[in-house]
């Protein structure tokens, strides 16, 4: 096992890694920016080292400074957390070149899974469904034919495109001709290339993801799945485990996740994201090759410490956990508490935390780097606390989350958090019944 590792991250995930390492008896170096010199992970670290000024590009994304920091502090491995360099294969490669263990998958897995096309290819080879689509279309006629085969509605997309621009939803053959011409014009305007492709348009779906752990030697297990459908602008706000998918659909998705991860001989913790439509069709979207914010709900239902497992696998310890060892129990929900003013369109709200009181009692877990007197710096994301509850049933978990939220106090001059938003969701009848697709926040939470 390692004697010393470095955390190349900040906030609650730096604290999470520190906790796991400390429980394993490993010393922890926390690399931090100047803005984070008084952060809780820095205060609790065995060693702290400043790796640059506040802006991420010069600190948490500064590969030379991070590697130098690991080298001069004698850290044997780097945990990248999530975000920043966690899914950067170059960084993983440079760690390896400098004899430092990158706690994550191999650079090769990251390269191959990192692109949409790469992921699609691997999915096809491991017999995991992706959203049906075409190659570049030569004509409207070809588009009509393909749409007929795939089934309406379909999505016309610029082949060279991205970010949703140049996309047209087509709901019937009648609309195809006009839409095709318009999409071509837009594709030409945005990307200087009028080539179009077409794929199935999934309008209403749940976001379901499978947690896997692999040893890089062919052994892969899943630790159940999560539902992360409560989103706003593609940002997850509330996650839960297990999903409310029925059997055998749930087992099929879990099996698909394991199949794909085995195909790439995956090492460490990874998440396979799927979309699932109301008819029970599911499609693989992408794989996140890192620990995720919402890994906590999986820990609550499994009793496992996923970050410790990451570290142990990276250290080359035998990964002996079998699928049958993993017993999921009860239901867990995580609310991401952001320093945002929910009533003002989730506008970021920074400042000093003067009064802080977190909930306790049965089934409540808090992962937060806040402390009374801490000033939330303006340079980074707005996640300030993760409130996680576990209950025997989803119903109990919701009641517990409502209770826990009502005990939470995070106050300071001008400081707002999303606690009131989460209370509103817990009180929402659609949420309580589990009727939650990714449009939930936009359509079900209106005043």
């Amino acid at each position, binding site marked *: 096992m390692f004697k010393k590792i470095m955390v190349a991250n900040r906030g609650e995930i730096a604290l999470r890694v520190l906790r796991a390492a400390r429980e394993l008896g490993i010393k922890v170096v926390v690399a931090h920016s*100047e803005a984070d*010199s*008084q952060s*809780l992970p*820095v*205060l*609790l*670290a*065995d*060693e*702290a*080292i*400043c*790796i*640059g*000024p506040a802006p991420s590009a010069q*600190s948490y994304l500064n590969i*030379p*400074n*991070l*590697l*130098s*920091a690991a*080298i*001069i*502090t004698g850290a044997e491995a780097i945990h990248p957390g999530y975000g920043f360099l966690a899914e950067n294969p170059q960084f993983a490669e440079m760690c390896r070149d*400098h004899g430092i263990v990158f706690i994550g998958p191999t650079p090769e897995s990251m390269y191959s899974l990192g692109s949409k096309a790469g992921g699609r290819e691997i999915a096809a080879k491991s017999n995991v469904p992706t959203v049906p689509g075409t190659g570049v279309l030569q004509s409207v006629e070809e588009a009509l034919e393909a749409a007929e085969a795939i089934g309406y509605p379909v999505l016309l997309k610029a082949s060279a495109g991205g970010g949703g621009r140049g996309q047209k939803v087509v709901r019937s053959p009648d609309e195809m001709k006009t839409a095709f011409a318009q999409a071509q014009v837009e594709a030409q305007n945005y990307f200087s290339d009028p080539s179009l492709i077409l794929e199935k348009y999934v309008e209403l779906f749940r976001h379901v993801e499978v947690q896997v752990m692999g040893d890089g030697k062919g052994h892969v297990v899943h630790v159940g799945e999560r539902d992360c459908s409560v989103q706003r602008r593609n940002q997850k706000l509330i996650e839960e485990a297990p999903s409310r998918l029925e059997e055998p659909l749930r087992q099929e998705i879990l099996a698909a996740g394991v199949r794909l991860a085995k195909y790439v001989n995956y090492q460490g913790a990874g998440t396979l994201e799927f979309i699932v439509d109301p008819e029970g069709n599911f499609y693989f979207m992408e794989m996140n090759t890192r620990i995720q914010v919402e890994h906590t709900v999986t820990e609550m239902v499994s009793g496992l410490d996923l970050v410790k497992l990451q570290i142990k696998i990276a250290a080359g310890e035998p990964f002996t956990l079998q699928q049958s060892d993993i017993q999921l129990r009860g239901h867990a929900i995580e609310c991401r508490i952001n320093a945002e003013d929910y009533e003002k369109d989730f506008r970021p709200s920074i400042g000093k935390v003067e009064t802080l009181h977190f909930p306790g009692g049965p089934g409540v877990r808090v992962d937060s780097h806040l*402390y*009374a*007197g801490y000033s939330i710096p303006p340079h980074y994301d707005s996640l300030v606390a993760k409130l996680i509850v576990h209950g025997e049933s989803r119903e109990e978990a919701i009641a517990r989350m409502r209770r826990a939220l009502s005990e939470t106090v995070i106050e300071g001059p001008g400081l707002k958090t999303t606690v009131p938003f989460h209370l509103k969701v817990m009180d929402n009848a659609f949420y309580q019944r589990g009727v939650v697709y990714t449009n939930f926040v936009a359509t079900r939470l209106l005043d």
Partner: protein
Amino acid sequence: MNAKELKSILQALQDHEVSELTLETPDYKLTIKRGPEVQYVAPPAPVPQNQPVPQAAPVVPQAPAVEAPPPKAEPPKEETGKYVEVKAPIVGTFYRAPSPDAEPYVKEGDTVKKGQVLCIIEAMKLMNEIESEVSGVVRKILVQNAEPVEYGQVLFLIEPA
């Protein structure tokens, strides 16, 4: 002892970062405790010079069971005002000379010119020369040869010419 006398004692305590003082004379006995009783586990944040000490006692969690890392060398407070600090622009290992058997680039008391190399910082097997941004006299070298330095760590104090 009058108010004025006391005031001047207090000023001295602050200047010298004294946290506690007990003075017994035949005439009086004086005990003073300054500042919040807060221990930092991590290296102390650089204290801004010539600035009033924060008013509200910061409520900083402590980790009683965790070993504190050795404190980093800090420049003596009263001197820094008139000196220019040369800080590490990158993380790495500090070397005073271009090679183990060479003479150091500079010694305390040396006069340096703007742009003159003061030291090197080795980072990822690359030697990075650190140049002086001012002309002046090297008053203090705050890091030992071959010692690791973090970003922003003060390496030299230079009295500008």
